[in-house]
């Protein structure tokens, strides 16, 4: 991490960048917050460890409006989001100095707490220089440890690689964390009967509190005004008017980001109710791959996206009836 701070400091000092967008040490051992650093001195609070799951690419929409360049720390998966925002003209490449940071998998406090680890006083094993094998906790209720892998966010188990899709410089080691197939869960749900599928999603989505965290964190949800926030339409609701609407909100959102979602997994990371929202997006990604050939949103900002370009080979609408 010192190497990262030194690099950021040097770039601030020589005027290459005006500010650094990274993470600031939290108050607890696991709650770093996204933060801007404008002076070399302020970087003393900079942190980058296993708890820095937040994808900072969306903050670059606002940072692109500021004067001068912003150094932004992006993990490999975050760079796909940045590229997608670039393709949508929502961020300015010239305003960004992308420091691609290494990643050994990011951690989920939900999983750590679910493992019964509570009253956490300190954590070790979560630094980027650590081997990311075991996490050690000193808690109010004694010592505890758990395998790093078991504490990782879902998305890290299906990581699509530690290569940065866009960057100006790279720093820090990475570690392959993939140990599951990205579409396994989608296949499992596809195989359910319509009644079972409905029951599954009903149970999950009925937990939704309409906090909009999934939407607000989503780099693909970058509309200046969301239809769900507009007072002009009946769709502007802060609560689910009926049991259908709680599904409608998420399904509409999934349709809206289809073909643009990079599968960064932020929606599921931030959901206070632990709803596996990424499953909607992954279903779309899987269908797109099957219908139009493999496509990864954000891999190449100049690529033509399957849902926004037409070719004579495109799937006909009746494919839906055939596929069921």
């Amino acid at each position: 991490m010192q190497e990262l701070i030194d690099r950021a400091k040097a770039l601030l000092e020589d005027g290459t960048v005006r500010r650094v967008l990274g993470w600031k040490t939290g108050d607890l051992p696991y709650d770093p917050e996204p933060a801007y650093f404008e002076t070399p001195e302020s970087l003393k609070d900079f942190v980058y460890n296993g708890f820095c799951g937040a994808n900072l690419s969306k903050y670059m929409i606002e940072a692109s409006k500021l004067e001068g360049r912003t150094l932004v720390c992006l993990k490999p998966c975050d760079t796909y989001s940045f590229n997608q925002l670039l393709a949508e003209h929502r961020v300015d490449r010239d305003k960004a100095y992308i420091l691609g940071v290494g990643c050994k998998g990011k951690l989920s406090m939900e999983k750590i707490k679910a493992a019964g680890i509570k009253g956490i006083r300190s954590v070790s094993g979560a630094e980027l220089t650590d081997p990311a094998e075991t996490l050690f906790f000193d808690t109010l209720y004694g010592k505890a440890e758990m395998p790093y892998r078991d504490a990782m966010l879902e998305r890290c188990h299906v990581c699509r690689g530690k290569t940065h899709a866009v960057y100006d410089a790279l720093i820090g080691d990475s570690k392959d964390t993939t140990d599951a197939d990205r579409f396994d869960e989608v296949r499992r749900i596809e195989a359910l009967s319509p009644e079972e599928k409905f029951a599954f999603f009903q149970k999950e989505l009925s937990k939704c509190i309409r906090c909009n965290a999934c939407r607000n964190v989503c780099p693909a949800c970058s509309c200046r005004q969301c239809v769900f926030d507009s007072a002009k339409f009946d769709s502007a609701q802060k609560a689910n008017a009926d049991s259908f609407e709680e599904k409608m909100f998420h399904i509409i959102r999934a349709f809206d980001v289809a073909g643009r979602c990079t599968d960064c997994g932020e929606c599921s990371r931030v959901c206070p109710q632990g709803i596996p929202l990424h499953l909607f997006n992954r279903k779309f990604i899987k269908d797109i791959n099957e219908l139009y050939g493999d496509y990864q949103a954000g891999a190449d900002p100049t690529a033509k996206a399957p849902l926004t370009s037409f070719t004579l080979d495109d799937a006909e609408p009746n494919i839906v009836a055939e596929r069921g």
Partner: protein
Amino acid sequence: MKRIKLEHLKALYRRISETRALYLPVRSAGKTNFAFWTEDAEADLDTLKTVKSPKDAFFPQSETLYTCRREGQKLHVEPEELANQDFVVFGMKACDVQGVRVLDQVFLKDPVDSFYAARRQHGTIVSLACHAPEETCFCKVFQIDCAAPAGDVAAWIAAEYLYWQPQTEKGEALTELVSDLLEDAETAPVDAEQAAIRAMVEQLPYSHLSLEGWNGNATEEKFDSPLWEQLYKPCLACGTCTFVCPTCQCYDIKDYDTGKGVQRYRCWDSCMYSDFTMMAAANSRTSQMQRFRQRFMHKLVYFPANNDGMYSCVGCGRCVEKCPAHLNIVKVIKAFGKEDP
């Protein structure tokens, strides 16, 4: 003091459910929230914090106020019936009980909110001491003792028993209803449990957070601080903090087009949302910084100014756990604390 074996709790739930609705922490799809008890429900008294607070029991996230129905040229206005059935909220923690007291200040003062008042009248609270408080808890800061929760009945879990102590008339009535399921108990196990809880609370990292400078007279000094401009920056403007909060009480009133008329309902609002307090003429807060500031000023300055010094934060720590950007009221209080050493 009474007690019941933990393994017999289901009989207790069943008994209460025979005559009144029972609302308690239920685990579903991997998360625990307050919900109505049914034979199939997985009651969960082990999870320290439900995702949402139990305030829904008295102030639901969404409730219909009245319905307008059109029949030809006639318009019928049908007010929604007020709650008229008794119910029990079981397993509320001390912080959440204090959260209801905060809501009382808002909804039971003139003009009384009849929907809320009816629920308060019919609801009986069985509180539960916090067996294992966590690092995100800071109820002590607000003089709440999670080892001795308020409520109509207070309960403690120690070894294989749930201990039961009625504290009000409503609590006595509920105790009467379930009396044959309870047995007399010594207070010693509860005393020991309380001592253990209080000793743990002393060690919690936020238990000794200082609220110095936060009071009803601090409006101008705090409102004008340049710190807000820095503090709000990572805020995603989602409503997580406000919707998991046991004291957030702002609501919006909306119309739902039923096709044959209008259902007027109210739902929780969030000061984090862009249309919060938007009026026909304009929006009184036009930036996220102003909305962010509102949340903390309300809890720590405006509310005490209007309620004899009572803060509208109870230290449950849900926002500490759930904010996607890891912002929270503790960080705000600490940031201001650093400003004037």
